[in-house]
Structure formats: structure tokens, C-alpha cells
């Protein structure tokens, strides 16, 4: 059965969860004029990688990445996928810690961070224990519940927008693409990379059609642009570069006299935190799949619990937001491996397999 719809929904909400918090601040600090070019560049890279990755997978269908890599050789698969597993674990750590911090900064100022992290990890571990199909069904449910609120808040966030702040559209410095080497721009790719790798892990359990995913990817572009341009249009470049969470600040300025919407930021935060919890459970499931195939001795359930416990302990050891930013930066190398090398390898292996398959009758 074709489950493209579930995969599309999952793909959208994992990205939305990542876009609105950490992404705008990186883009805004990477360049001062013509932010759209940085967004567009990252986005094109994203689409290209998704296309390459899914193409490789479709050649080797219905196998998943692990099957494909192990088809080449056990040792090769182990060496090639181990960094990916490490990357996933680091992503879980960073995401849990970062979003717990965001929750305390924005609305739970008296709650200890450890409790919030425990909540995130407990829920996502529970979801990932139930298996990949349950994760996708939960994704559908969460999308139906929260997507309307999210869209409402996004529409409302334009309340204080001054379109003049979009200008000038370009200057010489931006046109020279010098921002590409800016650490913040490289960090901003976090939002593009984390979300699509799961596509290689779900077949054959959750089959989907490749073309649809690539097409739906384009629907994400407006959200990337909105996340950067709404704060820019509300505050201007000078002021929005002073905020750690520019989009949240911009949503905070929205004023609606209806008491229920006194602070629309809450609706926004809670929807996005749900998306992020789902993202966490998905990444956790990916990691488990990798570990299970790499070390067959593992028993899945206890391994997930051990992993969650480990992540929790590491999260507790991260003392501050600055450390977290540094971790995000250190992770860049692994991120490039996961984002560039894995899709290209997948394509290469897929093509090789197809050629072999074509020779054999």
C-alpha cells in the first residue's frame, strides 16, 4: 500500500519543527542584505540532495539505506553508516537540549530544564518504541490537530510587517556569495539536513512515491522565507539581529484583543514542540535501526531505553546556550557527511545495483 500521504505529512512537520527556532537567527546573522539569496541557496541544495537521495533509493527499491550499503559489504556499511549513527545521536542531544532551553526562555521560566528534557525524551522514546508505522500515524494526528493553529499564527505574524524592510534586495557583498563561508550560514543548514534522511530508512515498512516527495519539498520554501522575513519586516535588520529567537519575538508583537489569543506565541510554541517531539522519535527510531543492523546483539527495547538515558545524561551535562551553539558548530562536519556523502553514496550504490540487475535476467 502506498503511504505517500503519511510520509509527506511527516516530512513537512519535521521540517516545520526545525525551521522556526534556530534557522532565522543564523540566516540573519550570516548576512545583512538580501537574505532571500541565502535561503534560496540552502533550499536549492536541499532539493538537490533530496532528489539525489530518493533517486538512489528508487534504484535499489524496496531496500532501505542499510540494506543497500550492506549489499556492498558488511564492513563498508559499518564504516559508512557509523558516522551517520553518531550524527543522529548528536542531533537528538542538541535538539532535546535546545528546545528545552527555548521552552524555559519563552514560557516555562520556573521549570527546571531537566524536567522538560525528561518530558521530551520520555514521550519520544515511547513513540519510537511503538514502531515506525505508529510514528507516521501519530504524525497524521498531530498534523490534523496543530496545523490549523500553525497556519493561523503564521498569517497573524504579518500584523506588524513593514514591507519596506525587504529592500534593498541585493548588494555587492551578498551578490559575491561571501556568506557561504560564514559559520552561521553553515550552521543554518541544520534545518535542511536533519529532516530528510529518514526517507532512506522507512522502506520497505512505509512505501512512498519519490516524485511526490520532491514536489512537496517546494511547499517548504515559503515557510523558510517567512521564518526569516517576518522578523526582518517587523523589526528591521539592525534590531532583529539582536534577538536569539527572532521569529518568536515577531510573533510576540502580534496584538489581538480577543483574550484567547492574548499571546498567540503559546499556540505556536506548543504546535511546534509537538512537531519536534515527533522529529525526535523519528530520529531515535532511525538510530535504533542503524544500531540494530550494525550490532545484531542489541535487543531493541532495552537499547532504546539505554540510548534515551544516555542522551538525557549528556543533555544534563550541557551547561549553557553557548555550549549548545558550539556543539551545533562542531556537528557541522558530521552534518556535511550526512547531507552530502550519504545521498551521493546512496545514488552510486543504487546505480551500481541497477546495472547488476540489468545484466542478470
Amino acid at each position, binding site marked *: 500500500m502506498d503511504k505517500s500521504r503519511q510520509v509527506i505529512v511527516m516530512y513537512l512537520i519535521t521540517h516545520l519543527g526545525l525551521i522556526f527556532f534556530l534557522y532565522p537567527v543564523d540566516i540573519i546573522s550570516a548576512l*545583512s*542584505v538580501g537574505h532571500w539569496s541565502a535561503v534560496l541557496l540552502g533550499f536549492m541544495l536541499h532539493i538537490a540532495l533530496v532528489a539525489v537521495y530518493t533517486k538512489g533509493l528508487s534504484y535499489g527499491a524496496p531496500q532501505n539505506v542499510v540494506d543497500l550499503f550492506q549489499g556492498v559489504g558488511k564492513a563498508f556499511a559499518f564504516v559508512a553508516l557509523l558516522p551517520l549513527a553518531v550524527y543522529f545521536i548528536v542531533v537528538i542531544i542538541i535538539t532535546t537540549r535546545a528546545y528545552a532551553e527555548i521552552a524555559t*526562555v*519563552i514560557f*516555562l*521560566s*520556573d*521549570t*527546571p530544564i531537566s*524536567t*522538560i528534557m*525528561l*518530558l521530551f525524551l*520520555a*514521550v519520544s522514546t515511547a513513540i519510537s518504541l511503538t514502531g515506525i508505522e505508529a510514528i507516521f500515524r501519530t504524525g497524521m494526528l498531530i498534523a490534523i490537530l496543530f496545523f490549523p493553529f500553525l497556519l493561523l499564527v503564521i498569517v497573524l505574524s504579518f500584523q506588524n510587517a*513593514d514591507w*519596506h*524592510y525587504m*529592500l*534593498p*534586495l541585493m*548588494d555587492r557583498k551578498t551578490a559575491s556569495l561571501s556568506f557561504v563561508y560564514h559559520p552561521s550560514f553553515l550552521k543554518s543548514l541544520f534545518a535542511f539536513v536533519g529532516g530528510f534522511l529518514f526517507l532512506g530508512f522507512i522502506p520497505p515498512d512505509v512505501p512512498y512515491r519519490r516524485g511526490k516527495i520532491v514536489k512537496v519539498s517546494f511547499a517548504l520554501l515559503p515557510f523558510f522565507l517567512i521564518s526569516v522575513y517576518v522578523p526582518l519586516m*517587523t*523589526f*528591521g535588520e*539592525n*534590531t532583529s539581529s*539582536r534577538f536569539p529567537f527572532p521569529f518568536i*519575538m515577531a510573533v*510576540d*508583537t*502580534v*496584538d489581538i*484583543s480577543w483574550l484567547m489569543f492574548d*499571546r498567540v506565541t503559546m499556540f505556536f510554541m506548543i504546535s511546534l514542540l509537538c512537531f519536534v517531539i515527533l522529529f525526535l522519535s523519528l530520529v531515535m527510531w532511525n538510530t535504533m535501526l542503524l544500531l540494530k543492523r550494525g550490532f545484531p546483539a542489541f535487543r531493541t527495547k532495552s537499547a532504546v531505553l539505554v540510548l534515551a538515558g544516555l542522551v538525557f545524561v549528556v543533555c544534563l551535562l550541557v551547561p549553557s546556550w553557548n555550549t549548545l551553539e558550539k556543539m551545533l558548530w562542531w556537528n557541522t562536519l558530521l552534518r556535511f557527511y550526512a547531507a552530502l556523502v550519504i545521498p551521493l553514496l546512496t545514488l552510486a550504490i543504487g546505480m551500481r545495483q541497477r546495472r547488476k540487475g540489468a545484466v542478470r535476467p
Partner: protein
Amino acid sequence: MRKCVLRMALFASIVAWTPVLSGCWDIKDINHRSLPIVMGVKQVDRAYKVLLLIPEVSPSEAKAKIVSGSGNTINEILDEINKNMEYKVDLLHLKVIVFERSIAEKGLDQSVESFMRSKDIPNKTFTAISEGALEPLFEKLEASSGSGGTEVYDFFEKNAGWSPEVVQTRIWEVFRSMDSYTRDVVIPIIKPGRTTTIESPGGAVIKNGKMVGDINSEESLLYNLFKGSGTQGKIEVMDHATVKIVSDRLNTTSEMHAGQAVLNSRLHLKVTVVETVGTPTEAQIKKEIDKQLSMRFNGMLRSAQAKEADILGLGQLFRDEMSRADLQHWRSKYYPFMKINFKVHVVIQDEGLLKIDV
């Protein structure tokens, strides 16, 4: 059997964790918090003084009380007040922050920045400047707090007592203007009223967080017009007629001629006649409106240009014609020499329930 016991134990431990999952922590119930509505900030020499207007609502009556303290920083004072009060002070529902004029003239940067940084003060809190000392204003507010101290808030709130000559400025707008190259801001000035609770004689021109001048109520209307807040309902009194503005629309185009900024601005007004003196013709009324508003506008702009304070945010309109480096000098190099052609186009939508004799 063993498995069953294990499961039961697991279930029990999961249930035991549920209180943690609620996310509530050290929660203080609403009856143990006090929620100030108005905060006043003044500076005496180098020390700050903060006044809080806290509503005390009981089933039988609604009144308010004033709590104050002084210290070196605003947060130190709030902490001190919190320590001495029987409730926890929760600024989550703070609605208006009133600065004393003297502190506005010295500079608001420090205090506005600390309000923006704070996690509990909403950044859409209204700001106001008190013309005289804060204490009489707060005493007046306390004395007339029939509805639990919300008077000042209602004064500014669009769906309550706001009128188009009153400027509405929120804390984030002040913060935005502090770093902006092209945009300054006007904060409404208030004082205790003679018969009403408060009066607003106009607004204070804030440039980079410092008060550099003031504008009157009539000019505040033009400020609101450029800001897009709407001027519906405002009454304009001229020599031969009094009209009420029904709707407004502003068209502006900007050009750059050899380093000289030129702005063409056309205001479309729809008005209805409320009162006439003598028998003016329609053309005469239109001409009078044009003359009155243009004169007022040019006067306001000239004084703002002299202070290099771009309160109307006109620099915004030139963003596509200047590089970022040039924009940085907008206030000093271009704005004071900007030429503006302001024209008013009036449509008399109706003449009330009486005809104008032609």
C-alpha cells in the same frame, strides 16, 4: 506470571511519573500573585524609582493600590518589592509603562532594553511619558480606579477609549527605533486630567531612545495617519466648517535626485460635514481642509527635520534607492534636506442631514 508482575510495576512507575509530565513547577496560584497593570519609572539623580499600580479586586469592590521602591536598577527594585510583598509580583499582565519626562530626556535605552530582555514583561506593553512627576499621576489613577486600575490601559486600547489623536506606541516599537537607521518614534505624553482621569497633550519625539522634542495632539493625528493607525472619527475644525474624517488613504512616492530626497505624498480624505459657519461652498471647505492640514504637516515635518528625528519613518521609503551604507547616514545627510510635496485630496462624502446651500 513474572512478566505480569513486571508489567504492573512498569505501569505503576509510569503513572508515578505523570505529575512530572504536566510541566508545572513551583507554580503559584493566581490568588497568591499580584498582577500590576501600570508601571511607572523615574530617575532621581542616578537611582531609579519604580511605582506599580496593582489592582485589588474583591467581589464587593474594585480598587487599586500603589507600591513603590527605589534602587540602582529596575530589576533590583522589582526584586525588592517582591521580597516585601505578601504576593508574588507577576508582570505577565503589565499593560502600560509610564516614564517620567526627565528620564526620557536622559535616555530610555537602558530601561527599554531591560524590559525587552525580561521574560515576563510582554513586548507589546504600551509606553507613555508622564509630563509632570509620576506620583500625582499615580495618585489620580488610584483615586479613580473604579474598574480596578485599568483606566490608562483603556485610554490606549483601540477597542475602548482610544481616539485618533492619541499615539499608541508599544515597547517593541521603541526598541526597534533605538537601533534603526530610518525610523524614530513618538511616545504619547499623559498627565492627570482636570475632570477626566488622564489627558494627553500630545506626544514626545524619541530619537535613538532619547526625547528630543514634542508634538501636539493635532500633529499626533498626522503621525497616526502615516503609521496607518486610522483617523476615522477625528473632527477637524476650520474657519467656515467643521468636518469629521470618515476614511483616509495615503499615497507616497519617493525619488532621489542627485543626492536630494524628494517625497510626493497625496492624502485622500473622505469627510462628512458636521457644522458650518455662514454659507461656505463645497470647494471652499475642501480648500480649507487642504490648507489647514498641509500647513500643519509642513510645520511638524520642518521641526522634526531640524531635530533630525524621522518620526514618520520616511527613510523607509528610500530603502531601495540607497545602499545600506548611505542609509546609515539618512538622518544626518539626507533627511534634513528632504523636499516633500504634501497634497490633500478631499471628497465630501455627505453633508450630514442638512443640505449645503449653493
